[in-house]
């Protein structure tokens, strides 16, 4: 490996005006699950406010999640008839606005929005399971523009809906309808396409942006490959065939030092070392037990924290498991949301428990835990001293620091 190549998984959104305490997209400011707001020590979460959300006689399961910017806490919601984007006041929990679109159609595992909304400056972008993307004014919830992955870009609806959370990089909104117009960079102002790249049918994982070599790349999966594109032009730079017997991949591809770490629930985890600006085709390490189905891990120094119906601490170079816990009911779940600092990891389990652990490889230690919501696959948000979570019936704000 050439030493001069600087490989930084730093965030392209860092050029944007985002306050440190915001959580504006999938996996936070830098899309890496890291936040300076992860507590240094455990303090029992104290409920600040709790609000009832959409109810219907026969509720459908809710996915999606929460994003936060400034005073706005924006939450995806769903019932049998509609999809909603709700905006709450961060301090009081009062509803600032409510945006709704009709849904009511049948989809396997329910038709709730899957993607996490994205806030940038004065706009919030909201994607439904059907591939309808809405750009709204953050202050008012008023629609600025909207488009359809299917109608406008010929995307083929995946069996479990469009799941990838929109990505913001280089001042463009990156969306993944899949197919001929598979990867599209949009102008934030009006949704006009800036460049378009062809892919296979879209997969279920969210796209990422990484600086590799001297180039900012958009990296993500289509149906059968992992690929990288030049964010400036949409030019495809490399592609790697991906073996996934289950034919779906949810965990996002992670850049770990000088390698890509990829996971799928049938095969496990693989590490592909970079050769200048692209990964080599042979994995340098693999471990079949890193078979995360839904969750994306976080990286702290030379450790990857992830899980496969368990919580795992993994060596980032060899993919050997330092420790794993699938006995604890909080960890024996499809999905754990991980929030990392250099020292600690705050874990929100699908079973509604919040836990704090130190990021250490010798053993798992639980610094504190508390059940704060009912079971949910909605992704929560961390902002300042507060933790926001949504289950099937409520949105909660907890103070998690003394």
């Amino acid at each position, binding site marked *: 490996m050439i030493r001069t190549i600087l490989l930084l998984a730093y965030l392209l959104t860092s050029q944007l005006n985002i306050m440190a305490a915001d959580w504006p997209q999938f996996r936070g400011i830098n899309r890496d699950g890291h936040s300076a707001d992860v507590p240094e020590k455990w303090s029992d979460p104290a409920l600040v406010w709790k609000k009832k959300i959409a109810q219907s006689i*026969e*509720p*459908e*399961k809710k996915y999606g999640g929460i994003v936060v910017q400034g005073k706005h806490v924006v939450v995806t919601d769903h019932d*049998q008839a509609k999809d909603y984007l709700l905006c709450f006041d961060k301090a009081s929990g009062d509803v600032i606005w409510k945006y709704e679109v009709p849904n009511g159609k049948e989809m*396997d*595992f*329910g038709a709730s929005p899957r993607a996490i909304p994205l806030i940038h400056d004065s706009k919030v972008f909201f994607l439904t399971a059907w591939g309808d993307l809405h750009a709204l004014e953050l202050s008012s919830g008023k629609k600025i523009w909207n*488009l359809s992955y299917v*109608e*406008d*870009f*010929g995307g083929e609806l995946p*069996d479990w809906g469009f799941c990838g959370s929109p990505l913001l990089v280089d001042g463009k909104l990156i969306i993944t309808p899949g197919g*001929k*117009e598979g990867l599209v960079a949009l102008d934030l102002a*009006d949704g*006009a*396409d800036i460049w378009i790249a062809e892919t296979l049918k879209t997969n279920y994982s969210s796209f990422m942006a990484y600086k590799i070599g001297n180039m900012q790349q958009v990296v993500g999966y289509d149906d059968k490959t992992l690929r990288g594109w030049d964010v400036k032009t949409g030019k495809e730079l490399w592609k790697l065939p991906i073996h996934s*017997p*289950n*034919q*779906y991949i949810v965990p996002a591809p992670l850049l770990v030092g000088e390698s890509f770490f990829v996971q799928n*629930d*049938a095969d496990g985890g693989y590490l592909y070392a970079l050769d200048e600006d692209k990964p080599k085709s042979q994995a340098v390490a693999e471990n079949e037990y890193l*078979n995360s*189905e839904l969750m994306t891990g976080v990286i702290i120094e030379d450790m990857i924290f992830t899980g*496969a*119906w368990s919580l795992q601490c993994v060596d980032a170079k060899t993919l050997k498991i330092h420790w794993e816990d*699938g*006995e604890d009911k909080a960890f*024996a779940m499809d999905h754990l949301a991980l929030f990392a600092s250099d020292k600690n990891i705050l874990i929100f389990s699908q079973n509604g428990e919040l836990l704090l652990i130190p990021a250490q490889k010798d053993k798992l230690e639980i610094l504190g835990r508390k059940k704060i919501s009912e079971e949910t696959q909605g992704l929560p948000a961390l902002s300042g001293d507060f933790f926001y979570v949504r289950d099937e019936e409520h949105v909660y704000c907890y103070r998690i620091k003394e």
Partner: protein
Amino acid sequence: MKQLIVSGCLVLAFLSPVWSAENVLKWRGENGGKFDLSLVQTSWSKTKNIKWKTPLPGTSNASPIIVGDKIFICSEPASIICLDRNSGKILWQKSHDYLDVMDLTNEQKKEIAERAEQNQHLETEVGELESKIRRVNRILKRKPNDNEAKAEKLDLDKQIAEIKSKINDQGLGDIPLKPKTHKVNGYTSYTPVSDGKTVFVCSGLGTVAAYDLDGQRLWAKKLSIPDHNNWGGSTTPVLAGGNLIVRFKDWVGLDPETGQEKWRTPAHQCFGTPLVFQVEGKDILFSPKGDVVGAADGKLYAQGVVGLAENAWWVFNLPILENGVIYTNYGVQNDPSMIKAFEVPKSLNDLKSGLKLKWEFETERMRFYSSMIMDDGLLYALGHEFALYVFDADNGDVIHQQKLEGFKGTAYPSMSLVGDYLFVSSDAGQTQIIKPGKKLEVVTHNELEPFRSTPVFLGNAQYLRGYEHFYVIE
């Protein structure tokens, strides 16, 4: 099309009578998932206690069946594979895709291939133009009065119409497009069935085929495509009342010798497989959706017996019959999930008023991909995320309820009872062996490659079809 592999096997001059001890002729065997064996291995891994393993050309959710020394499995999109039970060698593989099952001359085949190629070429052109139209539409969305874009759109529309007029799909005759299917389901979730001499198999392309044990296709035909237009189907074919009964849309009774259609009865939508039971000596089908149909004549005795609407799709498994009672279950996350027990009536006359409900129980909301098991008066029901309910089979009282620990993935394979042990598997390749009873005791936890196919058991071995390999565990 794949070339068939001609086996070196000799056709047996005479077939010995079929001993059930040497065969597993249908999904879950003769006793609804119960295998009266005692020497089956309870501990294995990819490298431990594997008698043999064979790489397979494609995946499938169908279970294996076993006829004597031969194992029959499916492979996507519409193939049957015969493996030697002793060596694991692939003896033959045949496809019953549309083109394979239609009686075509070489000329016709050539013409179809050429037309298909030409059409594909034209469709690619249309695809490119449609992409351009979408671009123009996006411009017009923002600038509705852009005359240049308007003109381009008109021109593109004209071009597309012109090319489309050249696409000749008439010449392809009855050959339909491939139906859609769910990624998890594919086209081969239909387990084959055999009478010991012939193997019958369906595919989600709407085809049915009969093969002898040496891979000679005796007949094949194309019926309608599955009635769930996005997810395909999985109703396993059944031999009963002298007929081969299949379902893609209607229940259809076929002559097993010739494939000739003998009767057809409208069905309610269902992914599950019918149970065969007897009334006055006649074979009757009970689908887990609640269709009650005579196997010999297709007579519809009752429909909607379990209380679901005609298009409710959340019915996946095979009901079981024990001591004159049929047990069935269904469910989904946003509709009641039910266990129901029905009494088998004494006379055909009674059957006309449906089946008498003995008891029912509403569980937490979940899907029941796995079929149930009954043992020693206890009924076991397994949800898709490993919630296990144990009922008193007599009255439906819940004896025990727990979420099984340590499982990843989804409980797609059906449970089996092998000797004294309950086998519970997940599509993550895990199997737990559990000592059943009023208190459950997990004996072993085993890991293998992913699979959705329900394993079968024979002699002292377990036969398991993984996504990529076939394993014999002993």
